[in-house]
């Protein structure tokens, strides 16, 4: 098979309105609400209580679990309360409410870590509080904690294939050297021989910036990806960059790869260099009703409504707000929720855009089959799901679906295909448990 077969995908209108815009730091808001569960794995326990004074970068939440990431204060000020409330994940969770003093003083603990061994490096990766910033939010410390020398490829994800989002593009242009330094640190301590930076062809300036910085470093290569969604999906970018196949039930490690997002590497490098953990996020604010779409640097825990207001507010009543890209992002029910580590975009849309799409009958046009990067047959899976036919769902390999939404995007009958498949997967799992 090899690289001869290229994975399918869909051509999505890029709508990168904020392309080329610099990242503007947002002033600290009056209050921040820092949730204790912003990553995959165990939630953190708050280490501060109401009335405590905190400074930027101070550890305020931690966990003993192997998979977890510590949480640091993104502002300086006073802890007002430790509350239970809804987070953007739709769950009730502990959050620390901090009233800011606007001084943004750094905590004493913010000093560059001393790294002399692999163990030191993993501790630093964990202490940085970095999680997978592409959206997966898998803790960096846990991801890099492998046996050194067992991985052949470090794949750096600079694809940003979702419409609207341009923040990784801006990061790649602004912090090219820091990202390369971060890559080199990971390669050094994990003894990874090769790195491939995957960047979509619609960002030639980013590709050039990397090539200029790398200047002949043979171990790090930039791979130009096609401009087609979902090049940034983990399984797809590994295949495109290395020709190795990762599928359902496998980790990239099984294929000798580690994948990291450019922003994650950058934030890790910032910690290695300055000792400042992940306390702010680069976010694209866009959508069809934002007055000033732009890329902003937002302290973690800022209210989404505050971020929108910083960008000039909205031209009209929003009907849908999406965190992340429009292909895989999550629509949130209300805007008084806190920004989390893994958010990369806040997209606001009016009623005309968000209106419910009327579902009609499948006409077997085959667009979904042609679009599926995982080579599945969504039309057939959808029919099996409608019939609640678990055997058929297994036959059509629904578990290999990675929920990229390409099928639902192209469907002329406007069927919520990937939404159906999520339920179908649960059905198959349930049936195999019995």
């Amino acid at each position, binding site marked *: 098979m090899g690289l001869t077969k290229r*994975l399918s995908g869909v051509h999505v*209108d890029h709508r990168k309105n904020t392309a080329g815009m610099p990242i503007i730091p947002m002033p600290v808001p*009056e209050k921040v609400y820092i949730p204790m569960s912003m990553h995959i794995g165990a939630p953190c326990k708050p280490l501060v209580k109401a009335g405590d004074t905190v400074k930027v970068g101070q550890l305020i939440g931690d966990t003993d679990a192997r998979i977890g990431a510590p949480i640091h204060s993104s502002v300086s000020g006073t802890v007002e309360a430790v509350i239970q409330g809804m987070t953007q994940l739709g769950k009730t969770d502990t959050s620390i409410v901090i009233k800011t003093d606007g001084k943004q003083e750094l905590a004493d603990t913010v000093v560059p870590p001393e790294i002399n061994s692999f163990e030191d490096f993993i501790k630093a990766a964990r202490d940085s509080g970095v999680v997978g910033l592409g959206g997966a939010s898998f803790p960096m410390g846990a991801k890099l904690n492998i046996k050194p020398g067992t991985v*052949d490829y470090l794949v750096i994800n600079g694809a940003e294939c979702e419409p609207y989002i341009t923040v990784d593009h801006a990061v790649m242009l602004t912090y090219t050297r820091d990202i390369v330094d971060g890559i080199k640190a990971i390669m050094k301590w994990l003894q990874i021989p090769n790195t491939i930076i995957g960047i979509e062809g619609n960002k030639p300036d980013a590709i050039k910036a990397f090539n200029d910085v790398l200047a002949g470093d043979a171990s790090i290569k930039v791979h130009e990806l096609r401009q087609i969604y979902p090049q940034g999906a983990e399984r797809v970018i590994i295949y495109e960059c290395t020709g*190795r*196949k*990762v*599928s*359902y039930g496998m980790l990239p490690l*099984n*294929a*000798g790869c580690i994948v990291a997002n450019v922003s994650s590497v950058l934030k890790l490098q910032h910690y290695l260099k300055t000792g400042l953990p992940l306390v702010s996020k680069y976010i694209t604010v866009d959508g069809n009703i934002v007055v000033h779409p732009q890329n902003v640097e937002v302290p973690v825990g800022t209210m989404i*409504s505050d971020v*929108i*207001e910083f960008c000039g*507010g909205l031209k009209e009543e*929003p*009907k*849908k707000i*999406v965190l992340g890209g*429009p*292909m*895989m*992002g*999550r*629509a*949130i*029910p*209300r805007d*008084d929720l806190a920004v989390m580590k893994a958010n990369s975009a806040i*997209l606001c849309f009016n009623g005309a855009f*968000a209106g*419910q*799409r009327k579902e009609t*009958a*499948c*006409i*077997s046009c*085959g*667009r979904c*089959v*042609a679009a599926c*990067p995982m*080579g599945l*047959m969504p039309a*057939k899976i959808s029919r099996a799901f409608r019939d609640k036919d678990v055997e058929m769902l297994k036959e*059509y*390999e629904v578990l290999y679906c990675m929920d990229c*939404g390409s099928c*639902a*995007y*192209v*469907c*002329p*009958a*406007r069927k*919520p295909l*990937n*939404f159906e498949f*999520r339920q179908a997967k649960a059905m198959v799992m349930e049936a195999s448990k019995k």
Partner: protein
Amino acid sequence: MAERHTDLIVASAPHVCAPANTASIMRDVLIALIPALAVSVYVFGIRALILAVSCVIFCVFFEWLVRKIMKRDNTIGDLSAAVTGLILAFNLPVGLPIWMAAVGCLIAIVVVKQLFGGLGQNFANPAIVGRIALFIGFASPMATWVINSKMSPAIMAVAEVDAVTGATPLGLLAAGQQVPSNLEMFLGLISGSMGEISAAALILGGIYLIVRKVISPAIPVSFLATVAVLSLVFGLDPIFQLCAGGVMLGAIFMATDYVTSPITTSGRIIFGIGCGLFTMLIRVYASYPEGVSFAILLMNILTPHIDRLTRHKAFKPAPEGGAAK
């Protein structure tokens, strides 16, 4: 403090979708049929337009009526009934009485489409079954061709000595008489079913559909290529065989019907080859001069099996050898 919004719409991703929907696809098909309709009106006169419009009206009416009687959502807005009507009209001789065309529309929409569950559920192309039912049921009117002075001299010559039946190029070939030139065939200056005469106009529509990505070229190309190759094998003129009868109309507009053709590209190629094969076998060996609609109907019935044969396998590493290549 910013204004709070607490009643936002929560929906599953993706939050954007491609512009094409069922109605826009059907509209594109209707647009693609316009050149052939124009040629038909030019060659046969206003009667062609009357027939086409009545078929469309009957199909839409029957669709509306059946959905009403069955107490289901009305679906005439998706334009699929209009497409069926127009394609059915293209398959009829211009002189056919309107009430007979209405019977064809009834069979196409009510029997073939709605009784099986409506759009997306029918196992065979409604227009083709409508045409075949009329062809068998009203054998004589369905083989009575209008002939006039705009047509090729070869056809005019027959009209003077013979009745108007059998005056299609394929009929002339079967009877061993002089056939029109390939250029006349290509342009459509011949007799035949209303919409099938002009290969040029149909190809124009096909190119439009392919450019608009409404159809994939897999079926038309494999269908036409098979007809051409088999013509050579049987010692016939491939250009004549491609332009004669319903091959162009069938390959571009009828075999490509989404619902009744395979869903995978490899399946579509098999489907196209099968259509071409049956068409030529019927033309050469069977008693009918033309076999496109029967060929497509046969392949329609095989479609679920072709789909099963050409099932895609999920993207995953080869079973043995594990992950590291």
